[in-house]
């Protein structure tokens, strides 16, 4: 869906190129997370896709078409855009904010109003209560929901999200991530998602592209990246607890075997393996009974090679 090839961007006055021969492909319906330390070029890469920044050389293809040959305004109207600061228009109602792109595309008012209500409901905001309010009357989390709704308004196939949940407190951030993933399962957009938070990347990404100094260091599924970091930089970036982080990608039910152990604590079957392990450690127990049947023992984390779950090959032996 999106294909970047030999992309180079050198900002005037900078000693090193911001983007240095970057190749990256994002499949349709996939969330690709761009991550890396600040200054790695992740936001620059994203902003070149909708031509807010023009590359010096290289190509950017969107659905097989070279974006540099498209009208920039036309191109952007076909791409959803969400930024960390949300950038809602403070002088417009929530409805007018969400209806911005449909309005630019010349939809009639009835169609826009219907679409606005549909989107507010989609992002979990009662349309009757919110459509005539103004951004400043909303909480940060609500504003970000409106930002997502606004990006989805004209049903673009591609979504660009620049740290969309970065300014939200951790509890609401987790909730927004869950809601976003729920919406994504329904809509299957092709998403480029910029973040600097590795936990967020692991949670939302179908694939993670780790950048450093404008170069792609590793492009892999979260499970793969955690199991087989390409080099010491990736290993350091994903953190020393990568084995634990990896457990958050699996459900306890995936590790369970039949049976029941008397006296062991009970846990919902759909909690992550990481949370399951934490529960065991917290309770001082060696096993968990899963609600609805099955049991997970501490030895299941060891005996079964959890590192090979998720389709990644078994890791090479490390000295």
């Amino acid at each position, binding site marked *: 869906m999106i294909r970047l090839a030999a992309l180079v961007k050198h900002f005037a006055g900078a000693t090193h190129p911001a983007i240095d021969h970057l190749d990256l492909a994002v499949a349709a319906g996939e969330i690709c997370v761009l991550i890396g330390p600040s200054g790695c070029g992740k936001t620059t890469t994203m902003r070149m896709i909708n031509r807010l920044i023009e590359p010096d050389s290289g190509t950017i293809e969107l659905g097989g078409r070279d974006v540099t040959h498209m009208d920039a305004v036309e191109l*952007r109207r076909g791409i959803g855009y969400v*930024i960390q*600061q*949300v*950038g809602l*228009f*403070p002088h417009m*109602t929530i409805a007018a904010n969400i209806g*911005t792109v449909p309005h630019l595309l010349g939809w009639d008012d009835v169609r826009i109003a219907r679409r606005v209500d549909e989107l507010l409901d989609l992002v979990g905001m009662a349309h009757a209560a919110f459509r005539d309010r103004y951004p400043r009357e909303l909480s940060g989390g609500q504003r970000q929901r409106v930002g997502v709704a606004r990006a989805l308004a004209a049903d673009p196939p591609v979504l660009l999200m620049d740290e969309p949940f970065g300014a939200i407190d951790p509890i609401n951030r987790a909730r927004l991530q869950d809601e976003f993933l729920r919406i994504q399962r329904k809509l299957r957009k092709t998403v480029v998602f910029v973040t600097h938070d590795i936990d967020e990347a692991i949670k939302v990404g179908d694939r993670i592209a780790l950048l450093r100094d404008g170069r792609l260091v590793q492009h892999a599924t979260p499970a793969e990246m955690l199991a087989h970091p390409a080099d010491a930089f990736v290993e350091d970036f994903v953190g020393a607890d990568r084995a634990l982080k990896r457990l958050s990608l699996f459900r306890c039910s995936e590790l369970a075997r039949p049976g029941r152990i008397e006296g062991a604590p009970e846990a919902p079957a759909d909690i992550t393996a990481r949370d399951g392990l934490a529960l065991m450690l917290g309770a001082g127990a060696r096993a968990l009974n899963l609600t609805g049947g099955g049991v997970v023992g501490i030895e299941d984390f060891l005996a079964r090679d959890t590192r090979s779950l998720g389709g990644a090959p078994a890791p090479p032996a490390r000295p």
Partner: protein
Amino acid sequence: MLIDAWRYILAHPDRFGDALWRHVTLSAAALAIAATIAIPLGIWLAGQARLALVVINATNLGRTLPSLAVLALTMPFLGTGFVPSLFALTLLALPPILINTYTAIRQVDPDVIDAARGMGMTQREITRRVVVPLAVPVIAAGVRIASIQVISGAVLAAYIGGGGLGDFITAGIAMMQLPLLLVGAVPATLLAIGADFLMGRVQRSLRPRGIA
């Protein structure tokens, strides 16, 4: 003394009416011309960082000139009467409107503009639908400041034959007649206060809903 002034107005309704009308039209025309020039210029300058620096600094310098000096400086070039007065008053009204417009446009949240551009608004649509509506309260404040300056400055137009309420003041001073001076001074003051009040209302009504 105020009663004497009131008696004078009653005795010369035409003369007073003409002067008042002259004062109002002179001020309103100067304000209208200045706004027509300064608002578009300010919007345009906001996108020209280097040129703006020069223009805004020059304007600020111009702002320090006393009103009477501006009026006096136009006389050698344009002579006396309505037109030179109008010209001088327009010059007086330009700086506050220009500076407020420029500042208002510049202080619009860049993230809001980035979002607008990223969603596919053209530069023109960004200016018209986002930037200008958000800048309107501060621009209106500039017009408000200018209106007070112009109404008080118009009193001085009498010195270069522009007419208006200043005629009574200069005459009152020349003849040492305090009541005659008040015939000019009190209505001119009330006019300035009234304009300030009116422009305050306009400013509030122009402020888009949703902006605190």
